[in-house]
């Protein structure tokens, strides 16, 4: 969960620009699913681990897409990075999210971490630490729907839905129907208010 990308889509939404439509989101997930199948040569031993909350939803959708193309779905789970964050002391205590590692575990698996937006890389760093407590994967890859730049750590994604150059104070809003009622990715301008 990058910090400054999440608004309240249901609240008073200031002017925002559409980056991906609902159909684009579906196509993008299908493309990433194909790329995962190609790069892992048939998803043998692959485990998808989402970073809550939207990363978990994306991981489930990727698994469904992979099942459609490949015939079998990889195990899906989630790992909450909150307890491993480096900025806990900078804001009031946060609510914790779901951690559910598949029964098969992650030992010697090829784990694909899934999140909606990649920015500083600090969330992914925390998620890697959290993941390592649950076992020792053979390798870990990263899939994100949007890479918006502004990295603060040497982390890059293996699968990227869309690269979006952004200003630091802009917001990326990822909407997924399971949580937000509809699919889409929008960019909210800096300082724009209702």
């Amino acid at each position, binding site marked *: 969960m990058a910090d400054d990308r999440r608004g309240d889509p249901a609240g008073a939404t200031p002017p925002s620009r559409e980056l991906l439509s609902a159909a684009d989101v579906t196509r993008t997930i299908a493309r990433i699913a194909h790329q995962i199948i190609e790069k892992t040569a048939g998803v043998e031993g692959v485990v998808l681990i989402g970073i809550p909350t939207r990363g978990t939803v994306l991981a489930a959708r990727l698994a469904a897409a992979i099942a459609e193309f490949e015939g079998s779905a990889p195990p899906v789970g989630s790992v909450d990075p909150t*307890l491993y964050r480096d900025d*806990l002391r900078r804001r009031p205590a*946060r*609510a*914790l999210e*779901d951690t559910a590692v598949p029964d098969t575990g992650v030992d010697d698996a090829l784990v694909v971490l899934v999140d909606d937006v990649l920015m500083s890389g600090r969330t992914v760093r925390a998620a890697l*630490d*959290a993941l390592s407590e*649950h076992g020792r994967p053979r390798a870990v890859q990263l899939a994100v729907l949007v890479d918006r730049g502004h990295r603060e750590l040497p982390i890059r994604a293996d699968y990227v839905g869309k690269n979006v150059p952004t200003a630091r104070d802009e917001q990326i809003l990822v909407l997924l129907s399971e949580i937000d009622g509809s699919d889409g990715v929008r960019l909210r301008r800096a300082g724009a208010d209702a």
Partner: protein
Amino acid sequence: MKHLLSVSDLDAAAATGVLDTADRLKQALLGREVRKLPTLRGRTVITMFYEDSTRTRVSFEIAGKWMSADTVNVSAKGSSVSKGESLRDTSLTLSAMGADCVIVRHPASGAAHRLAGWVDRDHATTGTHTSVVNAGDGTHEHPTQALLDAATLRDRLGGIAGRRIGIVGDVLHSRVARSNVLLLATLGADVVLVAPPTLLPTGVEEWPCRVAAELDAELPALDAVMMLRVQAERMHGSFFPSAREYAIGYGLSADRAALLPDHAVVLHPGPMVRGMEIAPSVADSPSAAILAQVSNGVHVRMAVLYHLLAGAPE
């Protein structure tokens, strides 16, 4: 949340927040070989116990350790307390040593409140920042016990709102009963106290619960029953004729437990006096959640430490 002194510090949303955090922490540690989270690295947690305790003190210590805090135990025996140091001086000394959290148990009701007042005043002058957790003060409150009982009931019953929960026995001397009545009522439960009239505190009619004297009449409608320990160490008079008579009137025997619905849960905050307030066969039966209470205690106390210490200071 700066301190946790009373369950009345928590509204339903805050209490549910702590219970949810406890569930998540349990989940995060599930099936792991190394039960250690880095979240409170470098924070110092001191338990200061002026009364005997096994589970509460150990449970707080484990909670702190599993979150990587440095935990230090101070007991009244073997510390400067036995040389006559006051509670105020001892607590300010620990605060000056850099304690981020002081967990206190004391035989005097209100001790934790006093302590919180002192460290807050001290904070204004020295800038040290210490949270206080009440781990039981006299006959007043024991908030983390109520939270772990609520966590256990939520686990077993699937929820608390609308459930009927009986609390039976020595209510007069029980901080567990007081905290539980307040918290369970806040969470929407229908609470019934069952006790001999001599073991009810004055003012109990203002508590958010019903009071009954006949245990057998209540049992068939209860979703859970919490048996309280008879606190002989706090009884300086005669409150009932004999232990045997108490057990006959208010002990949970096997025959009585049979009156409970099948899904009902039996709780006891421990330590149990088997044969007095609870029969051994009931304490060891599948409907008893007494050991689940203990293991939930660790996760609930981790959650309390998380809410007090993990975020930015208020």
